[in-house]
């Protein structure tokens, strides 16, 4: 969710500017629409579908400027939780419910999902009616590099071993900082890698792959193949004609 909002906390505002409203409204509406679509794949769709449609209507109303959003932080946060609750309802829709006195596996998740959606709606209503802080601007560059660094570690650790995974994850995530200096970073990454190897492999005796395996590139490709296969399997379930 990336409602980009220009930070202007010092200037008092009566209504939020047009761009915020558009971004927030569009994001809410799109997710709500996707959830409405998702309800066509489950057996008891009425409740989540109504919830998703209602949230979508709110989203459209926000775009149209019909909702006076006075506390954007709470308003959009609450709506997101409503959508999250709806999503959980859809995800747990196929689980058997109460049988006699006994709870089924689906009873508690649906109960908590409903409560979450209700509380989220209450947060959103309060956010719409009472003045609250704006949403701070989301940074993209720094967080993205940190996340890419972590993902890199996850992908490389099996096939290429601890040394390469640590070194590269360090280098990529350090680029997320504005104060990064190249020479220093290269040295620090090497030092950190050495330290981690000494600590985890020699001191703590953890069973890590240190260096790349003989068929590392192949293993890496296999990992990606597996990932695509599972994504494809999921899509195939949603779109009947794909297979």
């Amino acid at each position, binding site marked *: 969710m990336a409602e980009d909002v220009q930070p202007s906390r010092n200037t008092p505002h009566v209504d939020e500017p047009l761009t915020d409203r558009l971004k927030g409204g569009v994001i809410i509406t799109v997710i709500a629409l996707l959830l409405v679509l998702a309800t066509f794949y489950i057996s008891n769709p009425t409740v989540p579908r109504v919830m998703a449609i209602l949230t979508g209507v709110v989203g459209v109303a926000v775009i149209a400027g019909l909702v006076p959003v006075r506390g954007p932080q709470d308003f959009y*946060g609450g709506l997101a939780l409503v959508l999250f609750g709806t999503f*959980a309802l859809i995800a747990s829709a196929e689980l058997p419910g109460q049988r006699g006195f006994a709870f089924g596996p689906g009873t*508690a*998740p649906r109960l908590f999902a409903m409560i979450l959606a209700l509380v*989220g709606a209450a947060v959103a209503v309060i956010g719409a009616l009472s003045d609250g802080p704006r*949403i701070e601007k989301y940074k993209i560059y*720094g967080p993205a590099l*940190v996340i890419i660094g972590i993902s890199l570690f*996850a992908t490389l650790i099996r096939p290429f071993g601890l040394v390469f995974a640590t070194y590269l994850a360090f280098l990529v995530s350090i680029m997320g900082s504005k104060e990064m200096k190249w020479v220093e970073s290269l040295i620090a990454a090497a030092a950190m890698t050495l330290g981690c190897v000494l600590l985890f492999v020699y001191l703590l005796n953890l069973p890590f792959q240190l260096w790349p395996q003989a068929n590392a590139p192949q293993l890496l490709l296999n990992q990606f193949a597996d990932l695509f296969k599972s994504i494809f399997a999921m899509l195939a379930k949603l779109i009947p004609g794909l297979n």
Partner: protein
Amino acid sequence: MSELLSNLALGFGVAFSPMNILFCLLGALVGTLVGVLPGIGTVATIAMLLPITFGLPPVGALIMLAGIYYGAQYGGSTTSVLVNIPGEATSVITCLDGHQMARQGRAGAALAIAAIGSFFAGCVATVLVAALGAPLTSLALLFGPAEYFSLMVLGLIFAVVLAKGSVLKAIAMVMTGLLMSMVGSDLETGAGRMTFDIAELADGIGFTNIAMGVFGFAEIIRNLELPEESRDIVSAKVTGLMPTRKDLIDSSGAIARGTLLGSLLGILPGGGAVIASFAAYTFEKRIAKDPSRFGKGAIQGVAAPESANNAAAQTAFIPLLTLGIPPNAVMALMVGAMTIHGIVPGPQVMTKQPELFWGMIASMWIGNLMLIIINLPLVGVWVTLLRVPYRLLFPSIIVFCCIGIYSINNSPTDVMISAMYGVFGYWLIKHDFEAAPMLLGFVLGPLMEENLRRAMLIARGDATVFFTRPISGGLLAVAILLLVLAVLPMIRKRREEVFVE
């Protein structure tokens, strides 16, 4: 009383074996070392260091874990004072006055008072745990599923009421946590719930993945966008480690009150060290003759929360050891560690494995002693560690966390899940949602559901059972009262705002 003494004697007999003292010392040392690193909290520290203890005998492993726990707690305070980055949630409040003291060149006094306060709180809490252990265990026998459920509701309500911001948002976070805990196989039927046929989710979302993502990665991402000066390191030399006589006199009352408050809040599920430190600080500020000194380097503002969080950290073991309920995230990890060693936490631990139970309680005291011994001389070392600029520190923390997460299950997927929770945590921060109630909901979720289901089954589907059984009804009544008390002033305030308009 004599029974208490003989039990403690048994415990000290176990804990004072050279090997166990060594484990405790090692645990406290490593715990402090990792806890000092900003951005790595107690939970993350324990999660990271959990694998080290697998090879040890059960008593030794738990003693070492307890050492790590206290070390991490104390390490967190050190960073709060020196760098103004709380190592973990429990020492957030210590930043306010501790860092101000450091800027005035009194970092040594602040750290020493924190250590002394912690030690005092630790001594009191150890005795309290030992004294309350037995009666509470017998109380546990009166508890049926309905009572357990209500107790956990009370715990969650406590977490909600004492959270920083809006009560409603905290409830929403608890619900989010509960919902996330439902992912994975159902305990009774084994049906996969909300797993989308992803094999890695069949066992549920790992607790450490969430904790590292939301508290570790999200905090780092957040810190990256803060301006440079807000995370400056005290460059002034740490001089005069020992607090003056005046410092000691000034802080003695705060230490005593913090200990009391912390011990009480620690026992309650959902209370825990974080809330205890906040409550103690607020309390000190409220009763102070000159509240404006707080936030400008008042020594009471360091002494009270540090004593409180240590006392709470310790009494938090009470519900775990007697009722088998983990009152907070750290204790949930302890449950994990105990299960690995074949110990099921609960009332039976005390009767079946007295050496373990009392040994652990005795080791709490030893752990606190270790902290004083380690930290007073080693403050200089921690300071040099913190001289490392943040731009080099944060990638180190990231790779360290990655390796820690990976080492738990040897699973790259866990690392990816943590990364996603990092993004989620960043979103939570942007919308001012607190992650701590969510984590507690996540921890208590499976236990709550299990007891809810059992209670409903026993009562033949009659939901009023939670109110008609006296203990359960009493717990729920307290919970509702708390909630009302928390919401009332807010409504009043809002009304006033309306009137002003």
